[in-house]
């Protein structure tokens, strides 16, 4: 289970201070898919990076399975899986070598990692090119490899940052299937996206983020009640107008 409590981050440039994330709190339960939604620059990625320990928050913390980022950042990292649309591969390593490398980084015993690699390869259909150099893979194949990479250490919480960006219909469908699988096996999942239509189909609960602040949160029903709108897109347009 993931808890985010009062996370705050301010970036200072030479002439101004930008509050990228402002007192953000939410929880995600096992087997639940939480959509952290917002336009570009809303603070979604910054939030994920603070949860991942890549950025130090100015205030607040994230807690994964009872372990807090501030007291045990390494412990938190080892309990998180992370997949981003901009993920790359090591072109000169084979897919298997790369997956085992990440298994090693996450402290998975080599024999266990090898077995998980096989199982996940079957699940995601990357078996045929497990021993090919990653540099020779197509975009779709690479995407599936990075999805497997995120799961190699079997984390209880998965973070997905704009997972469908730049993908075709088949690629998007792969992501959908992947998220369904994560929900089925009881992972707590956060999906950051600005593709509201997709989010509406995928997520159980939503957090609408704008200018670093959580504007609305809850299930689709909750959001409809709170905003009087049917679709996420309309809710957002309203939000943007209010804050313009």
């Amino acid at each position, binding site marked *: 289970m993931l808890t985010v409590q009062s996370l705050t981050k301010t970036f200072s440039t030479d002439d101004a201070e930008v509050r990228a994330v402002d007192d953000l709190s939410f929880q995600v339960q096992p087997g639940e898919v939480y959509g952290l939604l917002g336009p570009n620059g809303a603070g979604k990625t910054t939030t994920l990076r603070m949860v991942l320990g890549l950025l130090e928050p100015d205030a607040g913390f994230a807690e994964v399975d009872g372990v807090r980022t501030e*007291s045990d950042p390494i412990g938190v990292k080892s309990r998180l899986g992370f997949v981003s649309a901009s993920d790359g591969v090591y072109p000169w390593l084979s897919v298997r070598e790369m997956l085992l490398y*990440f298994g*090693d980084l996450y402290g998975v015993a080599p024999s266990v990692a090898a077995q998980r690699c096989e199982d996940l390869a079957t699940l995601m259909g990357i078996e045929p090119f497990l021993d090919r150099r990653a540099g020779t893979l197509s975009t779709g194949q690479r995407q599936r490899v990075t999805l497997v990479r995120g799961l190699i250490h079997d984390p209880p919480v998965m973070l997905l940052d704009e997972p469908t960006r730049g993908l075709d219909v088949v690629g998007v469908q792969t992501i959908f299937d992947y998220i369904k699988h994560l929900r089925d096996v009881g992972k707590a999942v956060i999906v950051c996206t600005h593709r509201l239509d997709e989010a509406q189909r995928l997520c159980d609960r939503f957090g609408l983020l704008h200018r670093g602040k959580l504007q609305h949160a809850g299930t689709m029903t909750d959001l409809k009640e709170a905003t009087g709108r049917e679709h996420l897109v309309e809710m957002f347009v309203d939000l943007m107008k209010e804050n313009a």
Partner: protein
Amino acid sequence: MRLWRLSHKELKETSRDRRTIITLLMMPLLVYPLLSMAMNRYLLTSDAEAVPYKIGVENEADGRWVQEILQSPDSTPPEEVLKSAGGQMAEFELFNTSDTLDGKPTTVSDSISRGTIDVGIESEGDPKSYRLYAFRGDLRSQNARRIFVERLQWYQLSQLEKAAPQVVAPEFEIVDEGEEQNEPILATIVPLVLVLMTITGAVYPAIDLTAGERERGTMEALMASPVPRFQVLLAKYFAVVVIAMLTAIANLAAMFTTLWLGGLLPLLTGSDVFPWLQVLQILGLLVLFSGFFSAVLLSLTSFARSFKEAQAYLIPVMLLSLAPGMLSLLPGVKLSGPLAVAPLINIVMLAREVLSGTVVPAAATMAVISTIGYAAAALSIAAHLFGSDAVTRTSDQSFASLLKRPKRWTAVPTPQTAAMVLALLVPIYFVCSNVLMKYLSGMRSIMLGSLDDLPLDSAVALQSRSMWLSATTLILVFGLIPLLATWLGRSRLLSTYRLHRPGVLAIVGATIVGLGAWAVAHEAFVIADALGIGGLSEKRIADTRKMLEAWQIIPPWVLLLTLAVTPAVIEELCFRGFLFSAVLRVMSPLRTILLTSFLFGLFHVLTGNALLIERFVPTFLLGLILGVIAYRTGSVIPGMAMHFVHNGLLEMVGHYYKQLEFIGADFDNQTHLPPHWIAIATTIAVAGMAIVWFAGRRRTLLVP
């Protein structure tokens, strides 16, 4: 083990890359043969049109033999060979050394030594065998002989072709005159080659494994993994070192092979034997060079956001590195004083001195240790920069961020900070203690003569001044630098310096250890001396005696304050406080104790320009005892008590030396203590340790 697997991955990744292969193999395979061809051509032709070579013989018969060969068309190389050498044949001029103008006949070997001829020929026996003399290390003389031998071989070959089996070709032997050269050309060229080749080898993998991670988009996933950044970087570092070494080895192998095949090797090494020893020495130096450059390059490429940016950073570094490389070409520059700690310059000079066999152990050790320090500092900078920028597109990390205090308080400093502090301590302490020594010897010369000639009161004044100055240096260097780092890293003083209040029993126990430990240190010293580790020269023993005499007059409180209180407080705070808590973050307690003791011993060795190697074993052992006390009690304070009692006891014994003679004490530095003394002192020390051990342990603050 995991570090090895991580390094293995980096190595696999970079070695499969075509670009690595190109720098690794193409350069040596193509460049050296081409260079060698050009050089051979130059050597064959350069002197041909100029002054003829002087060839000397001792008698008419030999003169006729030489004439016959040189004038015979059979000794002319085939046209193709001649053409490749520029179509010109070298001219020879014949001299009879027994028939000189001043009427003094000389042998050819004398004439060679005097430089009156370039090549000399001497015969003996029947059938005749010939000796061909040239001067060792003289390019012109060696060339003259090489060309004559070639002509001779063409001549003999064609004689054989004329099917005259009854004609037995005379045997000849190659003899070199002159001393073996102290500094073969190899010693001046190889350091430069090492600089160039390790940089060439390290550049690509360094960029690829750091800035390349960002370009490939793998950085974020890597940084999100639960591996400390330093470990990730260390794995990359090992891979870069390996590639840099392989590149340099490939280059050196190609260089030696082409020189050897081209017959040019003796010109470089000054002898005809293949230089196996030098090859081994070069391999050792290679580790140092690649270790240094890989760390420096990684620290720069970690800062870069892209391949392009990394290359832009590296070009000035490569150019800058050439200057110290060139230094090895300058005669007369020696590895000593500040040069011994000057980054890169020191290893270039070290390489030259190792290869010419003139290495000074103290300066060499200093060069190696400071280079390791620089590499560690560069790596800690790299670890600080690596990845931090890749994930924060909006933040602007700069070099200034290294000096920016973090916003949050931390309990203990990071290992990187500790490495940084160590890297600073080595050169600063070196400079400070050297300045101190210089100042004191300056004072001494003002007071006339050496220490032996000084009247006792001047010696005492000098001694007490030196003690005050040493104590001040200790506070300024080992006290201030870690303190500054603690402030800069916003670490809490209490936990960084392990200033927790210990139990009374722990202090009592540690004090008792201090009463007995000196015997252990003394015995360690004597045993180490017997084993040949350190040991005192006559001069040092005389100095020590003089110092002891001075100690008897200096007031005891001055002795205690400067030689017991200050070291006990400052050294404990630095080694068992700051460094201990930082290292304990990443190492097991045992390793932490071993490492801090090793460093403790090392800094006692590096004093002034001399290396007091004899101090290593005793201080290392004391470091171990102090380390165990510090770990067990969770505090630096009992160690201070022990350290103070230990040092104080020695000084008081020194001060009251005369009064103590009645108990039969013999404080000779080189003899074992009487067995009952050892037994009593050891019992006291062990009893003290037992009290410390059972004094109720305070948990050591362990913060990740």
